[in-house]
């Protein structure tokens, strides 16, 4: 029972990250109908920026005493910078290709992804050495409550609140505001939306900004949770992005609530499968469930059934 609950909590932790990153994939796919392969790299940049800012403020190392606001400060800067980066990729790489065939946009996305990875490895940016992310929250590892023998730490609670808060904020933004209405209109039919006076370019730009900021939050959670930042082109980053993308597809790509559900589901599946079946095959479950979902219900769990028009 204890073990079961422990795995469940670990799944929730991972699910927060997958969910936040999957939101960016699903929003971009909803609006522009292409897989933004560079989104996983924005997560990497977000995580690394947290470290870079913390190092610049001398909050790294054993003797450092980061103030109470340190985590919030780092997160805010990282989210702003990533939002800017996401907007720039859209403006410079994707917008000129808005009317191009899908495969071209896909290749451009791969190009952007390669660019961010390899530029990140340059010595004056992030470098090629793995780094250790400091714990910016005071008493992060103290247990707040012990439930069924599992210690729920301060960090867990803060991260959970952050992820859930961001997801609720996004849900309100998309379903309750004018900007959200415009986003849904563009996703439904961009030409018709433009005819009714929706500034399509600005809405697409905002989609990238919001998605990238959420990716940065996902990167922050990843960095504070696991403390270990691999080099920018490391396989684990790419795999993280791919899994989040799978989460978006499983939940129904283009569907915002589906992305959150898909992220949680995938993380739980990965943790339980890794714990009770075989830890080596964790990544296989993810892709196997992807193929299964696509074959049985291609629209995803919460997605609408797609009908092909002649």
């Amino acid at each position: 029972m204890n073990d079961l609950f422990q795995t469940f909590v670990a799944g929730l932790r991972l699910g927060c990250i997958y969910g936040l990153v999957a939101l960016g994939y699903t929003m971009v796919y909803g609006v522009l109908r292409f897989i933004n392969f560079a989104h996983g790299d924005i997560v990497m940049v977000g995580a690394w920026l947290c470290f870079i800012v913390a190092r610049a403020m001398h909050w790294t190392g054993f003797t450092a005493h980061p103030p109470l606001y340190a985590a919030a400060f780092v997160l805010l800067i990282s989210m702003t910078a990533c939002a800017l980066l996401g907007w720039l990729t859209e403006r410079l790489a994707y917008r000129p290709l808005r009317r191009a065939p899908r495969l071209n946009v896909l290749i451009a996305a791969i190009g952007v992804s390669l660019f961010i990875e390899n530029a990140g490895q340059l010595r004056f940016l992030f470098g090629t050495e793995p780094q250790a992310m400091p714990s910016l929250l005071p008493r992060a590892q103290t247990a707040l409550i012990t439930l069924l023998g599992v210690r729920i730490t301060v960090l867990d609670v803060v991260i959970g609140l952050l992820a859930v808060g961001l997801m609720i904020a996004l849900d309100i933004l998309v379903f309750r505001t004018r900007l959200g209405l415009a986003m849904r209109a563009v996703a439904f039919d961009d030409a018709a939306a433009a005819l009714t006076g929706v500034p399509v370019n600005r809405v697409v730009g905002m989609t990238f900004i919001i998605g990238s900021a959420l990716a940065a939050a996902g990167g922050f959670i990843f960095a504070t949770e696991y403390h270990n930042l691999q080099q920018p082109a490391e396989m684990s980053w790419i795999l993280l992005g791919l899994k989040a993308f799978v989460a978006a597809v499983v939940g129904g790509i283009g569907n915002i609530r589906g992305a959150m559900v898909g992220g949680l589901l995938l993380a739980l599946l990965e943790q339980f499968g890794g714990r009770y079946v075989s830890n080596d095959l964790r990544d296989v479950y993810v892709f196997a469930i992807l193929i299964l979902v696509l074959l049985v219900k291609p629209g995803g769990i919460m997605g609408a059934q797609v009908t092909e028009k002649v």
Partner: protein
Amino acid sequence: MHPRDPRSSQFRPGLGGVVLHGAAPLLGIVALALVMDLLVAPLLPEAWYAKVLADIGINIVLAVSLNMVNGFTGQFSIGHAGFMAIGGYTAAAVVYYGSIALWGDAGFHGGYFSYCGLGHFNGPWFGGGDLLFVAACLIGGLVAAVVGVFVGLPSIRLRGDYLAIVTLGFGEIVRILIQQTPGVLPPESAATVPAPGRYLHLGGALGFTNHPFYTTIFWIWLAVGATVLVAWRLRNSTYGRAFLSIREDEIAAAAMGVPILLYKVMAFTFAAFFAGIAGGLFAHQLGSTLNPADLGFAKSFDILIMIVLGGLGSISGAILAAAGLTILPELLRNPPHVWPLLVPVVPIALALLLYRRRRLARGWGILAGGIVLLEIARDLAVAHGVQLSDYRMVFYALSLILVMILRPEGLLGTRELWELWPRKRKGGAGVRASS
């Protein structure tokens, strides 16, 4: 149409004609491989260039085969490296464990054309190892083709991006499963493990090592010739026209009675077969450790980039792009001077300007300006002691994005290289419809 015209339906060649007509392309392939192996390769100043020539060949096989799915049939496959991995590991296992079974050791047993070590080779022209190697590559291709059938099947239910994701997932599953396999058995203890399980000892995440190396320029370019020939004949056949019709409009093709599923699966099978052969060649290169990490989706993306850059559906475009994109990252390691390129470019730009071809002259002018800028950037970088090789992949990625924006249809579009220039049509008889 004249009855002696080979394109006429009344044309009946004699026996000699049939043999010559059928054997000529095969002889051509062997000639290509021999020329590459005996004439081109010895002219290369360093062993490193021969490696690049080999890589170009393997990449051409991969690009031309992926083009059958993405270019001809219009399906969206981004898991090509998965087929390559299946073929490569199958071939490596057949050669390694086959050598142990046949000769008791995993050494080299090939002849002259398989010898890829350094120095002079004192051995037979043809050895038993050659046969084993060729058989292994073909078995690898066949196994990959069988898997290709199953990867192609979902294409009836999934379109576009969704199919792309499934193929991507397939490639990743292959890679991860190979990573879980146990280590390669040493020759002494291979016989102690019972047969079916023995062949699954593929080295896991550490890679398949200690197998003999057979892949030479000769075998690679033989495969290149065969792949290009099959792709070319396929496209100009009934099957190829069915492929193209599916690409252009699937629903209309189905309405005309084209069995969509059959042809889609067929395209996947053909592509997988040649990717498997390329994997077998890749596995037995000199000094290669076959590592699953090298055969992940990054490799699939590389191949995809080649065919999109060359122009989807264009065989010559795929060949050009495969060669260019293999050379480009190597060139960027230590960028050479680009001044010499100005010698042809500037006169062409001036001549076009003189003949009032402003639109054409502009493109050449931009090229000349780009060369000057590149040269200035290179000299500045060298003067300030910047390591240009650090920026290699950054420039590669940037040029990829730029090409996609500036020339979205790729180098050649769906045309072939020789269709760029208008040619005189003879009579009007049997002009091949350009696709």
